[in-house]
């Protein structure tokens, strides 16, 4: 079932991180309102392939809003015009016939472009590797119900833990800061009893890695929170600041 929307796309095309990119204009015709944004791009790509042109490269995988692999800065906003939505869950009914849509990759020095709209987000992995875990080996752990955790605490930790690591916070922030992402992970462990033993060293290690990756600094504009597809709250950044400052100023001994 094809649709009746005709759109003009201005898409960032860039062969790799060593070449300069540019915008290329494409027509997307016969687009149905029921298509997701990525399905609309699929249609454009199928046309390109039929014409023998290199399709537009973009990252995507689960297409149900949970894996965090899709990105795209659409008409000036990460994941497009709808709040609380990843690009893969954005549908074309959010656009209108005849509209021009500008599609850019996430822009940050810590997220270099790999090709077209796909960027390298391994900086996020490295931040997690620096301390985003509890030091337990497999086996030899206590029974799961040994430590009761108040429901409100567990729920709050869960809220922080739902971050999908897509990088929209960095993309939205005028400073390309990663603090919402980093703080969500620090928060989860700062809240859960299992994270207590290493909470101060974790905060220091993760913040240090975040800085080393070249992300910008938070100026509390709140853009990250507003654009986060899963609603990670600014409260997390406050908590991270608290954890970090506490670690640096008062808990140096504990934070080996």
């Amino acid at each position, binding site marked *: *079932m*094809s649709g009746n929307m005709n759109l003009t796309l201005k898409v960032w095309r860039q*062969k*790799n991180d060593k070449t300069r990119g540019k915008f290329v204009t494409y027509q997307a015709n016969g687009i*149905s*309102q*029921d*298509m997701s944004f*990525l*399905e609309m791009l*699929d249609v454009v790509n199928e046309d390109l392939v*039929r014409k023998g*042109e*290199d399709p537009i*490269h973009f*990252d*995507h*995988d*689960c*297409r*149900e*809003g*949970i*894996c*965090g*692999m899709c990105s795209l800065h659409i008409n000036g906003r990460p994941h497009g015009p709808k709040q609380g939505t990843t690009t893969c869950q954005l*549908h074309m009914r959010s656009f209108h016939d005849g509209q021009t849509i500008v599609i850019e990759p996430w822009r940050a020095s810590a997220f270099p472009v*790999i*090709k077209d709209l796909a960027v390298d*987000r*391994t900086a*996020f*992995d490295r931040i*997690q*590797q620096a*301390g*985003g*875990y*509890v*030091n*337990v*080996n*497999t*086996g030899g752990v206590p*029974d*799961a*119900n040994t430590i*009761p*955790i*108040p*429901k409100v605490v567990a*729920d709050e*930790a*869960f809220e922080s*833990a*739902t971050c*999908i*690591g897509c990088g929209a916070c960095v993309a939205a922030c005028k400073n390309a800061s990663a603090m919402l992402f980093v703080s969500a992970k620090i928060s989860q462990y700062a809240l859960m009893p*299992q*994270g207590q033993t290493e909470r101060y060293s974790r905060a220091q290690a993760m913040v240090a890695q975040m800085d080393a990756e070249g992300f910008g600094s938070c100026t509390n504009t709140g853009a990250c929170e507003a654009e986060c597809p899963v609603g990670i709250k600014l409260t997390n950044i406050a908590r991270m600041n608290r954890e970090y400052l506490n670690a640096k100023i008062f808990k140096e001994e504990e934070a080996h």
Partner: protein
Amino acid sequence: MLDSKVPAGPLAEKWSKHKFNLKLVNPANKRKYTIIVVGTGLAGSSAAASLAELGYNVKAFCYQDSPRRAHSIAAQGGINAAKNYQNDGDSVYRLFYDTIKGGDYRAREANVYRLAEVSVNIIDQCVAQGVPFAREYGGLLDNRSFGGAQVSRTFYARGQTGQQLLLGAYSALNRQINKGKIEMFNRHEMLDLVTIDGHARGIITRNMVTGAIESHEGHAVLLCTGGYGNVFFLSTNAMGCNVTAAWRAHKRGAFFANPCYTQIHPTCIPVTGDHQSKLTLMSESLRNDGRVWVPKTVELAQKLRKGEIKISDIKEEDRDYYLERKYPSFGNLVPRDVASRNAKEVVDEGRGVGASGIAVFLDFEDAIKRLGEDTVRAKYGNLFDMYYQITDENPYKQPMRIYPAVHYTMGGLWVDYNLMTSVPGLYALGECNFSDHGANRLGASALMQGLADGYFVIPYTVGDYLAGLGFDPVDKNHPNFEKTRKEVEENVHRLLSLKGSKTVDDIHKKLGHIMWEYCGMARNEVGLTKAKGLIQELRREFWSDVTVLGENEEMNQSLEKAGRVADFLELGELMVDDALNRRESCGGHFREESQTEEGEAKRDDENFRYVAAWEYQGENQPEVLHKEALEFENVKLTQRSYK
């Protein structure tokens, strides 16, 4: 006959005894071994982390841009564990029994018992990692009943259990990467297995950013690469999910078991058009309160589809709540395969709803009347929102439209009790293997199996193999590495030389249609035979008329897709062969020739109580069937009934 290496002795003691009998690798010697782990979902991440903790060197690979994105992340419902925290009569034995029965007696008893046994450790492990499971007000873990189970044994983290468990395993993985024990390769796709003297000794990968075709050597190779549901083009799998790693291993000697066992999940959002790229699952918990129906007559359904009448114009007596009618005791909560098949049946009768007519209603009107909209919102709010977002229809005001979609594949690489495939040194974990779910998987059991294999089985069993190897490093200059690498390169260039008129997706969609039509929810001899021919034809069309653009030395999504579809085109035929061979109905495999008078699946235990493991024989050669007889010493085989 295949040797499953299931140890002798009473069921409950098999695993403990086996663990004792397995050879150990001295702690100081573990660092002399390198283990390759392909895939970083629940099975892969947990295996890589656990093995690295023991001291092995691990090389881990994933095709995504980060190990955290593996599709385990999308599992919604929960994870089963026989904790019996609710004091409602659960036990290791009951979980074992339910899983065997749910799998329609086509799984290996010993594996399933072990799965149930270690399930309790999984929850402990995840909690220790800081996974924020749902809790009661008293601070203890909450459980829910799931998928029609009679006990509440499902642990969950709202509707995102898979995500939370995967992030837990990912954190364990990260910890070992930080310690230098795991070398992580993101955006790398395994394209072949290297064997030396019949043993798995390495893999060939393609760096998906630079195109570099690289060899990696290791003393053992673990495939944790998930299922092959994308052979249907449309499925609830992620776009990148593929069978390539498993299929290439199959072509190097690993038997493929029960490929025809696919699970079709009943509550998915229906297809809207040809543009559709994937299907979205909604948790089957919706069936706890939603009522499934279609119009009683074809005429009414037609009028509704054409928009001549509204849903509200259909009177109560003109609605057919077919699940409640046919299965009075289970009603809307019948198992997944039964619910799916019945939906197909009413749609085939022409009573389907929605513009396409390929959907049935899941109606919450009564639930809202009974519980109030707020309660319904509290229970299912996120699912309703998701549905609203995708369909633009408000499920609080009108019934949802649902239709079954391919969701999980119970088949996979054949493995013995140690999870080793028929290639020594090559293991398969999680959805990638065939072992624990028989012909049908119960809800909340996939996560359990992935983590059981990775955290609690492979760390023991892999040592037994390594201990017999000696300490020599794998010879990376062995000619087989270069030979296999060359073959991969040739295959890549063969794909890149294709300059026909079809896109890879054109072919993939056609394959999907064939599989769905003839090897989907209901199968028969005639259809399957036809499908076999169609697939062979399609494979020829692919290799003669498809177009693959670009070059190898860059990020090339055309090439990636082409390689995967080429393998699906071979797997598809094997699935059809397997379905043809299995002239019985069991679990997700419904042969129309084998049904009861009431139209329910009928097993043939006398002739088909075995695992069908297929051995590759070369291009376009029929595969050879090996059988592993399934012995049931502890449970009595009965015909499932949900009447």
